[in-house]
């Protein structure tokens, strides 16, 4: 009898108040943000015809403009290649210093991580603007900005991957009498190199897209031509740049994704 009574005990479900409150807060934040930024749906509807005007002016694209921008597009890609490579190389020692399984000094590890986090908070466009102020207009400040940006991203991704490696081989290398560098070369590098290459390729994808707009602050690449054509209201030329950028980015994304699949 007792057992039967026990079986029918039904605890009350937990209160759902927390979910409702969360929902209310999200709606409040959304509404508050739109009011503060004066973004209203009415304005969007009003502006809608303008969008079509712009699109109309973009067509037909002035394909002959293509010849003028090939050089700038190649420059964009070159900036991305150099920036990613420099950043990736700089990231290697820093990632090793940040990984808790390789750097036993918590003091050093945390200070390097702090600096790394600070670097990653600076947006790439701001980095480019800063470098333009330092070294002047051209592809060099853009490349420097991409280097710093890639460095931050790759170092972060790599040290997280480093902390997830199998520590067995490290132990084995200690037992054969290897020194610190030899341990890394034989137990860490083979475990991490495919991941590292994958991170570098992924960063390269991001960099090609980023490099396309760096020209807006005078840091070289195709972005400069966006500014010129938009400034002179030559939207038919802008559309050529957009289509070209789109094609290049898609192509690089596709190639890079395929390569990364092969790596891992």
């Amino acid at each position: 009898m007792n057992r039967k009574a026990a079986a029918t005990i039904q605890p009350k479900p937990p209160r759902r108040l927390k979910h409702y409150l969360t929902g209310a807060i999200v709606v409040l934040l959304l509404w508050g943000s739109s009011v503060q930024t004066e973004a209203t749906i009415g304005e969007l509807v009003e502006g809608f015809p303008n969008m079509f005007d712009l699109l109309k002016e973009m067509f037909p694209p002035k394909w002959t403009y293509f010849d003028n921008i090939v050089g700038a597009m190649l420059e964009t890609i070159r900036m991305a290649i150099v920036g990613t490579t420099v950043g990736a190389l700089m990231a290697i020692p820093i990632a090793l210093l940040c990984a808790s399984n390789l750097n036993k000094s918590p003091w050093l590890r945390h200070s390097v991580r702090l600096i790394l986090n600070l670097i990653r908070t600076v947006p790439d466009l701001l980095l480019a603007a800063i470098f333009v102020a330092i070294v002047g207009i051209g592809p060099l400040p853009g490349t420097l900005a991409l280097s710093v940006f890639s460095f931050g991203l790759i170092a972060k991704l790599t040290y997280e991957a480093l902390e997830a490696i199998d520590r067995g081989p490290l132990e084995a290398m200690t037992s054969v009498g290897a020194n610190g560098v030899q341990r890394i070369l034989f137990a860490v590098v083979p475990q991490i190199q495919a991941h590292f290459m994958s991170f570098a390729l992924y960063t390269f994808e991001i960099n090609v897209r980023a490099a396309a707009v760096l020209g807006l602050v005078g840091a070289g690449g195709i972005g400069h031509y966006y500014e010129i054509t938009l400034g002179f209201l030559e939207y038919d030329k802008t559309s050529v740049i957009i289509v070209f950028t789109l094609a290049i980015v898609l192509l690089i994304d596709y190639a890079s994704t395929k390569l990364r699949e092969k790596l891992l």
Partner: protein
Amino acid sequence: MIELHNVTKLYPNGTKGLNHIDLSIYEGEFVVIVGLSGAGKSTLLRSINRLHDISEGDILINGQSITKAHGKQLRLIRRSIGMIFQSFNLVKRSSVLRNVLAGRVGYHSTLRTWIGRFPERDMHLAFEALNRVNIAEKAYSRADELSGGQQQRVAIARVLAQEATIILADEPVASLDPLTTKQVMDDLKKINQELGITTIVNLHDVDLARQYATRIIGLRAGEVVFDGPVAEATDERFAEIYGRPIEEAELMGAKRE
């Protein structure tokens, strides 16, 4: 020769991993250390090549104190002691050959390792080692393409290439099936007999220990409770040692592993 003088290992949480151990292991012996999990077998083995630091006492390897050694000196002593692990500890993405050559890095400068070119003699040693464990045809396969037993034999080859005079094997067959267990243990025995390498193996299986050892050491709660030739390691003796209800100290030790 390996000498342990009054070795005690205290873990930070206060557990005694090893308790005043005195042992001498002579050249060419095939010693099997038996005991329940948490008895301190692994701690003892890892103290010998100082993968674990001991809290008290001294360990001498061929007369040299590994406890007091550091830097280059420590690495040189470690170079003479090969280790085989339960989980093989190979780099899975590297080739079998590279895993075996890893045993040679203790003989070379950092710069030489960086360039990655091993001398002719090292290649010869590596292939000789692979042939000894019958796995030379897999030299250029990736380590993770091999079965567990084959991977453990690669680990044995790594120790051989290392030209170690002592082999420590920490539960080398715990993750293998009975047939591969036999192959791996046979390989270890063969190496011990043909090359005269002092071999210390941790096992939890007493029957297996009796089959291969020349001397058995029994551990319980970090203390040596049996030390003698196989003939003396009878079932009665072991029932006496392990048959009694497990004591609290052993349970505390078991939590750690």
